[in-house]
């Protein structure tokens, strides 16, 4: 194409300029005409060259595009390492690390020198580690430090997927899927302290035992999601818990059925049933049974406000001299009324195991205000009025600060 254009231009120039004598013979008017024609030709030549340049540029672009189409895909433009790229990501094989700190200041009428009483205490620093072990499993561990107690291993377990019928297993030390509050880490509770029924029956730091459990969600009737869980655990309960004895040799078996129903894109209701069977001493196996019911209603009223209503009830069946069916329950509400603020309240009632007192039960009313400083820092002020079974009344005020560093995970509802 380039050659043909040049040829045309040359021919035109020869035709116009090749025989000047013919024009010269025609006089001064013809000479002027000749000059004019020469200027026109020169202008045409410039235009032609400009067109030629444009064609060459376009041809070069076309060649580049053709080369690009034929070549293997080029690396993504200006893209840094991504969590799923797996390229140059040393973090992908190292454990994910998070540190959660829970500092509580307590002012109470209780003069006992117990954990965090009438002082500021680093109640817990949780070091959370975890990552995939291989394509079939993941390992998670939580180690808790405190300024009042020795270092403790809260959780250390392997999660194994891809089992027959799509069951998922956990093996190690973990929080069994019992009810709602017993299986939640302290820093994730709605209040500073555990509900009394959890603290008295399962332990003040919740219920975590070594064992094996299996779970599998599946579609239930009427648009529900059903999630049964079954497990066998070492005996005993958490610190100060009274549901089972302290022996670890008598195993505990548990089962839980979670029933979840979406009411809308913003609201849902969840009902759970729990059964535990364990031992209170070395003499027998599974002579203590506990049955639990839990219910949770959540409604994100607007994108920045949320209402939560929750309740749990546990009833025991055990051979005791004074009370064969101790029970305990709580009712809780938490309302996030602004993006950074929420208020909540809880009522507790729990009958103590095998205790003869005037009232047989501990009762409490609590109210709290939470301020979310950011996604990684939260403050909570709580007041609790408790009437103990011993008829002693106790008022306490808590100020809690919870801070997170490193990897943090958003909980599943």
């Amino acid at each position, binding site marked *: 194409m380039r050659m043909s254009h040049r040829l045309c231009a040359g021919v035109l120039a020869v035709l116009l300029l090749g025989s000047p004598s013919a024009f010269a013979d025609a006089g001064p008017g013809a000479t002027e005409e000749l000059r004019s024609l020469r200027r026109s030709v020169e202008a045409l030549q410039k235009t032609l060259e400009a067109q030629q340049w444009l064609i060459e540029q376009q041809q070069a672009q076309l060649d580049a595009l053709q080369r690009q189409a034929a070549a293997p895909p080029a690396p*993504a*433009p*200006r*893209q*840094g*390492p*991504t*969590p*799923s*790229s*797996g390229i140059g990501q040393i973090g992908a094989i190292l454990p994910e690390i998070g540190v959660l700190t829970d500092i509580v200041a307590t002012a109470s009428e209780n003069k006992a020198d117990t954990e965090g009483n009438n002082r500021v205490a680093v109640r817990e620093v949780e070091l959370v580690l975890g990552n995939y072990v291989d*394509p*079939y499993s*993941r390992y998670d561990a939580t180690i808790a430090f405190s300024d009042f107690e020795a270092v403790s291993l809260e959780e250390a377990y392997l*999660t194994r*997927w*891809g089992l027959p019928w*799509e069951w*998922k297993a956990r093996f190690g030390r973990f929080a069994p899927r019992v009810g709602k509050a017993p299986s939640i880490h302290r820093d994730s509770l709605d209040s500073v302290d555990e509900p009394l029924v959890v603290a008295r029956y399962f332990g003040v730091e919740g219920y975590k035992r070594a064992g094996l459990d299996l779970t599998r*969600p*599946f*579609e239930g009737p009427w648009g529900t*999601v059903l*999630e049964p869980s079954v497990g066998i655990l070492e005996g005993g309960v958490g610190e100060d818990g009274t549901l089972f004895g302290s022996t670890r040799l008598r195993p505990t078996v548990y089962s839980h059925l*979670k029933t*979840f129903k*979406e009411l809308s*894109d*913003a609201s*849902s209701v*969840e009902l759970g049933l729990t059964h535990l069977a364990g031992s209170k001493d070395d003499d027998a196996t599974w002579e203590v049974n506990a049955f639990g019911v839990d219910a949770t209603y959540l409604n*994100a009223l607007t*994108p*920045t406000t949320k209402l939560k209503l929750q309740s749990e009830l546990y009833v025991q069946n055990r051979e005791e001299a004074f009370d064969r069916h101790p029970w305990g329950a709580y009712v809780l509400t938490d309302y996030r009324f*602004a*993006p*950074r603020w929420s208020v909540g309240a809880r009522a507790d009632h729990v009958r103590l195991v095998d205790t003869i007192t005037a009232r047989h039960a501990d009762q409490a009313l609590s109210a709290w205000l939470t301020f979310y400083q*950011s*996604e*990684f820092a939260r403050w909570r002020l709580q007041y609790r009025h408790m009437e103990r079974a011993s008829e002693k009344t106790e008022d306490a005020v808590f100020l809690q600060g919870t801070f997170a*560093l490193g990897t*943090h*995970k*958003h*909980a*599943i*509802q």
Partner: protein
Amino acid sequence: MTTHLAQAVRAAARLALSMAAVLVMAGGASAAPLRVVATLSTFAELVKQIGGDAVEVSYVAPPRFNPHFIEPRPSDVLKVKKADLLVHGGLDLEAWRGPILDAAGNPRVFPGQPGELDLSRGIALLEIPDQPLSRVMGDIHLYGNPHYWTNPENARIMAQAICDRLCEADPAHEPAFRRRLQAFLARLDRKIPEWRAAVAPYRGQEVVAYHNEWPYFAQFVGLKVEQFLEPKPGIPPTPRHLEFLEQYLTTRGIRAIIQPSYQPAASSQVLAQRTGATVVILAQNVGELPGTEDYFSWVDDNIRRLVEALGGPHD
């Protein structure tokens, strides 16, 4: 004895026949639509545009909520557990993606598996950090700004990636997927100049945003967004910062404050009242606002709202 043996053989034959029937039925079931779960409604919409009736698509994050702070529900876990393909935004937008994957325990959609599609791949990311990061800077994104789907130019790359993955997962429907992709891209080619022309009179103007979630959209429409109501990402507006912004908007004659519907509007309204600017609610995702139910109506609506706030359409 012989009779017992014959009965046993007959029983075994019946069992084998039943199992064969079950296998045949299971084979037939493979013609069922491909189950695709997307993290965001916009990704789900793109899957629907390309996959049509050959896919059954759902999403996790309801569009009227901030996609950074979703608490996945058991029903979401079940969706992911049953999914053949998980389409997500990659990067670190969906901090809840890891927990939902772990809870679902579906190895088909684990990172790096054929059932996982990270749409950020191939996108020219903006704001990739080029300095050491710290939480002192707020809730920063480690891999670049993750809101890339708001630029319609990026829809070409995302749609192509979705089409390629759907074709791999369901080769029988490849011709249909390719046809639908071409139709989508052709419509996009017609609409992009239209959208650009609508905002052309305002190119180069500056607006203020609540959170830094519009750099890709701003790039597309040619607007500048350099200041945010959040003094740092994820940190709510402070009175002092609002005072600074009041001066900033006034001295520069900025006419619009943009934000999605899920961010709190109170501070933006206060700033608008003080400066005479207009608060423009733009949808960050398909379906967030009425009339944004599909990809094209979503971008149409955002362009219309923006143009109205900046001074109305020019003839």
